[in-house]
């Protein structure tokens, strides 16, 4: 098994996640794409953990998962709030922060 195969898989997932973030109008879908990105990171971490034979990769993978959970929680809460005010969660309408 090559280290590369795992890293490349991570990379592909990462890029798909990036496309998702950019292309998606619906906030939830964007959150999902972010999940994709986080997972690709996890794969990388663990690949290197195995390669270097240290447990660091594992701890950080766990931390990433924890953070992802927190992030989805807050993200969805915000989406809920926005939805309640705006009746729509299309991102391109939420432009109040315009410079």
């Amino acid at each position, binding site marked *: 098994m090559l280290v590369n195969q795992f890293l490349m898989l991570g990379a592909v997932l990462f890029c798909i996640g*990036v496309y998702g973030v950019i292309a*998606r109008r619906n906030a939830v879908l964007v959150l999902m794409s972010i999940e994709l990105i986080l997972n690709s990171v996890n794969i990388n971490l663990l690949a290197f953990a195995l390669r270097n034979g240290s447990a660091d990769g594992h701890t950080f993978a766990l931390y990433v998962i924890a953070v992802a959970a927190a992030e989805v929680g807050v993200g969805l809460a915000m989406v809920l709030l926005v939805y309640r005010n705006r009746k729509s969660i299309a*991102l391109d309408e*939420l*432009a109040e922060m*315009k*410079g």
Partner: protein
Amino acid sequence: MLSASTEAAEAVFTSGWFLDHVWIVPIIPAVAFALIIFFGKRLPMKGSELGIVSMLATLAMSAAAAYQWVNRVEAVEKEVFVPPVIKAWTWWSSDGFSFGIGQHIDGLALIVLCVVAFISTLVQIYSVEYLHGDRRYTHFFASLTLFSAGMMNMVIAENMLQLILGWEIMGLCSFMLIGHWWEDGANSRAALKAFFTTRTGDIGLLVGTSVLFFAANEWTQKTLGISGFTIRGLSAWALSGEPSSTAITVGAVALFIACIGKSGQFPLHTWLPDAMAGPTPVSSLLHSSTMVVAGVFLVARLYPVFFEGMNILGTNVNFIVVIGGITIIIAAALAFVQNDIKKVLAYSTVSQLGYMMMGLGAGAWLPAVFHIFTHAFFKACLFLGAGSISHSASHHSFDMKKDMGGLRKYMPITFITWIISTLALCGVFPFSGFFSKDEIIDNVGHNGYNVFMIVGLVGAFLTAAYMTRATYLTFFGTPRGASAGEHHDDAHGSHDTHDDHGHDAQAHDAHDVHDDHSSHGPRESGKLITVPLIILAVLAIGSGFLNATPFGEKWEKLKVWVEPRAEVVDPTSVALVAHGGPGEAKSLPAAEESEEGHHSSPCGSETPTDGVCVAPQLNHAKFKWSKAALSLIIVFAGILISWFLSMQLYERKNKALVGLTQRNKLLGAGYKLLANKYYLDALYENVIVKAIAYPISRGAYWVNQKVLDGAVNGAGIVARVSAGWVYRNIDQRVVDGTVNSSGAAAQGAGSALRPVQSGKVNQYGALLFGAAAIGALVLVIINT
């Protein structure tokens, strides 16, 4: 380098207290100036007595010094070099260059010093009467005294810096004096013009001094131990064969430009006639006998520099003599066209200065200096005469046509002194003008400048002509205007507005009283005016005999006293005489006798081998009556012709046609003219006046006014316009614009980037990742 030749003639030179302390002379008027400024108003005669006393003191001291100098020179036989009495103190020094101040007294300095002191004294006495009751009486005397201080300082200057100091102070005083009645715009403009033109010339002075200083300093320090600024250093350096031709030529030309400016020579002479706007005493002192001579004095003082720089005896034409010649002709031509008596005299002064410059330019050093001496007396006399006429006869107007005529009956003394001075000016035999002006023409011819000799003769002819015309218009014919007793107010016109219009509370204007009794027709002026006139007239006759070449060698006093002897001298005598005192001069073995009776010395021709020259060897034309007769005939012809024409024009004034010409002019010469009087009139009116002479003079005047004056004013306007343009465009728009625009640019960039902040999360994501991608790509490319 110094060959200790044993048989060198040990000459011990006497000197006196006065000769050693001539440096006090300029300080007296300077102190008097300060006193007048502060206490003038409170003195009984409002400051004028202080001025006169100081002038008398300077006159006495310079006369005594002259006397002691004569003894010093007479005590030694002809060929020995008489070192000047030099005293120098370091005024200030910066980085090795030391700038001294002190006195450099020799024949030239003393003769001009005496002239300045004498004329200033007479003019100050004259002004007490002339300016009686003037609003700024004290200021007038203050600036007059300051002027004398400046001129005297320049005359005895030991180095160029002191000379520049005096030169500029004179410029300042001429500005203040011309603009004495500055209420009237014309006067202040004339003052401004005078100051600018002289100041433009002064660039030459600054540049010339710097160039010469740096070229000469190294040599003068090495051989003579004195700085390159000193006059004797520069003279010795010029003749030492040391200077490269470019340095000395550039220096000489630059200095000569300053002389052109100051002495009103050809291109920069336009300010002198306008300077007549000043009170008449000022015109007589500054703008005829002393200040305008400064340029000629500078050329005479640094003669070796000009001798080498302009290669004077080398070629038969050089810059100085050309300028001198042109000035003589055009000034004389212009004098014809003038109605204002002071303008005529002004152009005559310019023409006479042209003579002096031509003389110096052609190697006639002594005649030119002698002409300064004589010209000062008779020209001052003429101006004071004109002043006396305006003061007592024509109610302050100087217009010959309108307000003068037939005054010989009413003002005998002024008339006689005027006639004497005119004859002196024209160069008639017994009078001083003959001895000096004729000498110049003679020597110019002798030195090979034949073209300029002819120019001199033509000039003499024209001088005689216009002076006769002026004399006729003022003293002969029927009295016109103010002289005829009409007391019309416009006579108070532009020229001398004595009383000022403003509600002047200060001194009760005594002038009005004075005006009343003059209303009943012209009469002779008071004693304070006539006495100076008489003294000057006497001197106009007497001064000629100081160097009367026609009466043989022993009469040529000035040649002995004034002309510096061109001897090879060991450097010590010229060298640093720390605190003055009579330097012992060891003159080297006398060179062999030359056929002309003066022994020839290498100075000026080739580089002196074992010593130093201080003056170039100049040759003197032997006086021959044949040559003198020629010029006398020309002068008499001029007088007669001009007299005749004036009679025709003004006597027969009633004809309407005649009136048109307003003035006569010189016709052709010869018999036809005299034979047919009537035909003459027709010929004179239609052909000569309209066709030839009239346009030339008018043209000359037009050129003078439009082209030259226009150029000067044009330069002013152009400078103003370009200044405005430069200021508006370059300064405000470009430079200031860039500063303000940098602010605007920052704002512009800001607004350009605003859309990036669109508030859309996706866009941020896109930008973020896009940037990351590009960054990564770059890193990858760099590493692989």
